[in-house]
């Protein structure tokens, strides 16, 4: 049940990040060409959720604490995770026509790197905040040895 919840939450989070990336791409397109309309196929919203789901599965396999790859160094797992997620995003992007030419992949790659970095930075910040709060609370009840 916990895994289902984790996949669901990750899918939501990653789908939002992809939607943000596609939104930024459209904004750049608007600023560079002045085109006020975007023409998305009917399946684009579903393709975003599907990609989010695939990324969530990759996250579960690669960086989750119960991962079967937990013997591999965490930094290496994050690196593999980064590459795997980029492969999923660019692969799905190609299949679902988010881009048609290789040069159109460049802004997607830049947005991906920024989003990936932002998500990890936010996650680490949240973990560190929890660490700080727990350490402060523990001091009040800690036994004297």
């Amino acid at each position: 049940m916990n895994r289902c919840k984790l996949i669901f939450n990750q899918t939501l989070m990653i789908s939002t990040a992809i939607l943000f990336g596609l939104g930024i791409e459209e904004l750049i397109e608007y600023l560079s060409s002045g085109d006020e309309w975007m023409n998305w196929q009917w399946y684009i919203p579903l393709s975003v959720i599907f990609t989010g789901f695939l990324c969530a599965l990759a996250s579960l396999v690669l960086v989750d604490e119960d991962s079967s790859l937990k013997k591999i160094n965490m930094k290496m797992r994050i690196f593999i995770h980064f590459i795997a997620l980029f492969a999923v995003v660019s692969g799905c992007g190609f299949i679902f026509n988010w881009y048609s030419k290789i040069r159109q992949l460049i802004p997607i790659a830049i947005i991906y790197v920024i989003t990936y970095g932002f998500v990890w930075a936010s996650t680490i910040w949240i973990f560190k905040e929890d660490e700080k709060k727990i350490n402060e609370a523990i001091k009040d009840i800690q036994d004297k040895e």
Partner: protein
Amino acid sequence: MKVKVRQVSLYEDEEALISAVELTDDIKSAIDILENNCRVVPVISDSKTIMLKTDAIYYIESVDKRTYVYTKENCYETRYRLYELEDILSFYFLRVSKAMIINIRKIRAVKAELNGRMRADLLNGEQITISRAYVKELKGKLGI
């Protein structure tokens, strides 16, 4: 066993009378709580059962269906399972993984890891991993 409670107005008048056929571990534990205001856990030391005060416990671990109780310097075996000990132990004990219960008061500090787990440094220098699922419970117990 029937339990009767009669309210009195003065602390000096407080007393407990236990009528029992024999002094079982549970009754000994109850006596210890009443006398010392501290819970105890029966553990095995050199083939003898001794009552270990819970405030001396650092953590309890289940390995191959056996349960081990760790204090600052010693390790004892107990016949209780982890889920049974969770009922016996006080508020300051927390399940931190499927196979471990920790005494929160024995944690020197915690350090967050990238996968959401936390590493707890204990007062005796040992390190314990707190699973991500239980970090939330730890925060709850600490009122965070």
